[in-house]
């Protein structure tokens, strides 16, 4: 269907946390027939609506979320991102397809099992925070634990730790209405973290925040991910946020995933005109790595001038090359993988290296 990087990449040692296959969510009367009917499922959104009165919010989506990665789902408003992420824990009941968490079929779970999943395995952070206005910060954070039946003293102690972790110490007794937007979202984040879930799901958590606060919060997420290595599924409509946070990005349009890959793949080799248009203004030197920019082949010298790591971004390489005035080597484990020079680096900035064709995918395979 699309360029699914999952297929191109060799299987990782871990099983995926989430494994989604052929997922559909159709809103409207007699929604079940749409995925089954080949003719209906091929219609575009407007025609489908006219013919059946149904909206296909998610259409035939497949992907795996690997352990420890930040998996970003990106798309414009209305492209089905929220519906998709809610289907993962069946906050919205999917219409067709399979969802597995750690190999267990989510759609086959009974109510009790599903509650178990929501209580311990996947916790969500919402765009408008979804805090309980009548509870204090501490009790909001402890809410998930309270639901699980944990005693008051214990859950408050646990919650207090998490509150500190997200940088809200001293505000435990405030009500959400007494906090700024950014602080409220920290509470939302803390509430999700408090139950120590295997996966964190974020639905556009920072879209309602001011730009500066948004940057702080993004850094907070990066920090948390670095410290805890928790798997995250992150929904956003903001490309720069996606590129900043995502290990891999699924780009959605009208309910379909049009491209799935690393930020570099999305920017470097857009799957179609839509994606290309989407990433046109991205500062490429901050996304593309030297692994992609280099001329493969050993430099055949012992010194390896420059000594860049293969996942250093082009912007860093430019600094090195401009400083020394000579091409730099890309080195991994003491072995030289290739060389970048002025011409190669400028090609990346100008976006002309694409014409090079195969250079994009070839080196990746040997890399991982």
């Amino acid at each position, binding site marked *: 269907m699309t360029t699914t990087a999952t297929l191109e990449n060799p299987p990782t040692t871990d099983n995926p946390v989430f494994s989604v296959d052929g997922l559909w969510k159709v809103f409207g009367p007699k929604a079940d027939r749409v995925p089954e009917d080949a003719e209906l499922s091929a219609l575009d959104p407007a025609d489908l609506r006219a013919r059946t009165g149904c909206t296909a919010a998610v259409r035939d989506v497949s992907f795996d979320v690997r352990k420890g990665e930040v998996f970003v789902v990106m798309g414009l408003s209305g492209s089905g991102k929220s519906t998709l992420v*809610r289907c993962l*824990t069946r*906050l919205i009941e999917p219409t067709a397809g399979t969802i597995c968490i750690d190999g267990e079929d989510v759609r086959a779970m009974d109510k009790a099992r*599903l*509650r*178990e*999943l*929501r*209580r*311990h395995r996947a*916790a*969500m952070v*919402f*765009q*408008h*925070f*979804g*805090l*309980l*206005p*009548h509870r204090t910060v501490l009790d909001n954070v402890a*809410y*998930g634990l*309270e*639901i*699980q039946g944990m005693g008051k003293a214990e859950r408050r102690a646990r919650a207090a730790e998490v509150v500190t972790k997200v940088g809200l110490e001293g505000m435990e007794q405030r009500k959400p209405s007494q906090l700024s937007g950014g602080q409220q979202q920290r509470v*939302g984040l803390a*509430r999700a973290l408090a*139950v120590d879930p295997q996966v964190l*799901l974020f639905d556009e958590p920072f879209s309602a925040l001011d730009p500066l606060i948004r940057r702080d919060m993004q850094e907070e997420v990066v920090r948390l991910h670095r410290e805890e290595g928790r798997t995250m599924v992150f929904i956003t409509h903001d490309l720069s946020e996606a590129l900043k946070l995502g290990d891999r990005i699924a780009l959605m349009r009208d309910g379909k995933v049009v491209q799935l890959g690393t930020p570099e793949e999305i920017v470097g080799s857009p799957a179609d005109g839509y994606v290309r248009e989407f990433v046109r203004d991205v500062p490429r030197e901050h996304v593309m790595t030297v692994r992609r920019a280099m001329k493969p082949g050993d430099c055949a010298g012992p010194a390896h001038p420059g000594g860049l790591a293969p996942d250093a971004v082009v912007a860093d390489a430019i600094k090195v090359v401009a400083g020394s005035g000579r091409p730099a080597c890309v080195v991994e484990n003491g072995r030289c993988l290739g060389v970048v020079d002025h011409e190669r680096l400028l090609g990346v900035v100008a976006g002309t290296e694409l014409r090079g064709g195969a250079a994009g995918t070839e080196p990746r395979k040997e890399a991982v």
Partner: protein
Amino acid sequence: MATVTASTPRALPTGLLKHRAVHKLLLIALAAAVLVPLANARWASGSWPAALTVDLTKPLTSASDWIINNRDSHPLFLYFFGYVSNAVVISVHAVYVVLLGAGWAGVTALGALVAWRVAGVRLALGTTAAFLACGLLGMWVPTMQTLALMVVAVLASVVVGVLLGLAAGLSRRMDKILRPVLDTMQVMPAYAYLLPVVLVFGMGVPAAVLATVVYAAPPMARLTALGLQGADKEVLEAVESLGTTARQRLLTARIPLARKELMLGLNQTIMMALSMAVIASVIGAAGLGDRVYQALASVDVGAALAAGIPIVLLAVVLDRVTGAAGDGTEGQGRAGWAYALAGTVVVAVAGRLLGRLDWPDAWTLNIAEPVNRAVDWMTAHLYSGVPVVGGTADWAGHFTTWVLDPVRTGLQGLPWWSVLLIVATLAWLIGTWRTALTAVLAMAAIGVLGVWTPALDTLSQVLAAVAVTLVLGFATAVAAARSDRVERLLRPVLDVFQTMPQFVYLIPVVALFGVGRAPAAAAAVVYALPAVVRITTQGLRQVDPAAMESSRSLGATSWQQLRQVQLPLARPALLLAVNQGVVLVLAVVVIGGLVGGGALGYDTVFGLAQGDLATGLVAGAAIVCLGLVLDRVTQPTERRTGKGA
């Protein structure tokens, strides 16, 4: 109609409306052209044809006889209504005994301390003063009787209302079933609820409590449902995403999120319960209402006032305290409540030890006599023959001869089918064919019940009173909307007036105008005015400031602004005000049967007083039908949420 926007203030919507209105009018004209000659040929015009009435007197009388004969023997009464009735009597009595046992000092302390906890020192002082005033007026015992009845009725109403509200708020199917029922119950005059309960329970405390519950539970149910449905979707989703069970969601999220609406519901239920507990004196509830009722029956304005003032004080205190409980920040600490409770107990025990449980006779103030002297003086000097302005009784007389009589004669002179036609046209123009159908059927039902003439009499009083209400109300509202000073002055007055039970309004009008149809209409005007003024003022004030500004920038005079911008844009609010005015006026006009209003209201009282339930029930049913007609004929597209809300 509701899509009036700032950019194109009038042109489009009215154009559309005219278009549709013309269509409807044409259709009605067509239907009339076919049906009227047929009806005319068959049953002739004039009053409702006798051939089309059904005499319900016999079946109703026999039904009521059967119930009276079987009340003590039939299992349904023995094992269901009997239990209900006993439970009510026992609970009311228990509360009454507790209130008396706490003594006047204990009750006053309790009231004051509760007010202090939920609303602060000022309201605590106000509450104390109010209770002391009740005692001073020699009304301590009736006040406690009314309170006991209220406590039981409010508790039952809250339980019933919350349960119904939960059902409607959590299930869309239940909501669909309950909503129209609750909407309709909301517009029914309190009076209409009295007779059915009397039929089943007989006169007395159980009937009074149950009528009160039936009247006071709907706002609780509506607001509970509203609160549950209005909960922030994302909060509920977040709560669900953490793995809550449905019960946990309800208890930890949905109900707390609906707190504001629940408190508003409690407030409205208490106010309606008070209103009804007072009216229920007509069916045998002892207490303040009964004192007013007895006093009015003998036109003893002084005694009526002595009982009326405690009602007003009770209403204001209850409204303020429950209102503050709704606004206040919750959970002000248990310790405060413990102090409050301890304080009450100490005062109550102290009162008991000092042997001062009953309000001391020496401390009462007899206001009845001076008031009656004042009324006598007024009767002598102000009733008639005052130079230039004329007297109050003259005004009442003129209003009767120049307004009420012609309207009544006119209505009763109309051919019956033309009344139906007018009802249909009005209801359809303003609403849908569904509302029109309901209205016509309800109007026809009045004819079928055989009370066409008295119903039109009631209707004439309603129309006259509504006209006066709207003229006064709109004028006041325009003044209040244009001047902050006027609004500031008006607000506390409206607040007090809107909390007063309907019954109380009868006292001053009887003092001023004597008895008759004009005083009944006057009471109705006074009762409906605050809601009309409030809704209209709000509507005028909420007109989009951008539209106002643009018209001002075009150099419109303030009169032009009012006529061309404010009034058209406030149209929905005006329609709502008319609807509320009509509903509220009807509620009091039928109560006016007690002070010589005659017509349906009188039939109801007469039925109750003479034990002639058939007459009363028919009149009650006709009141319900008239209520339906009037509501549907004026029903704006959007519904109100509560009395003058």
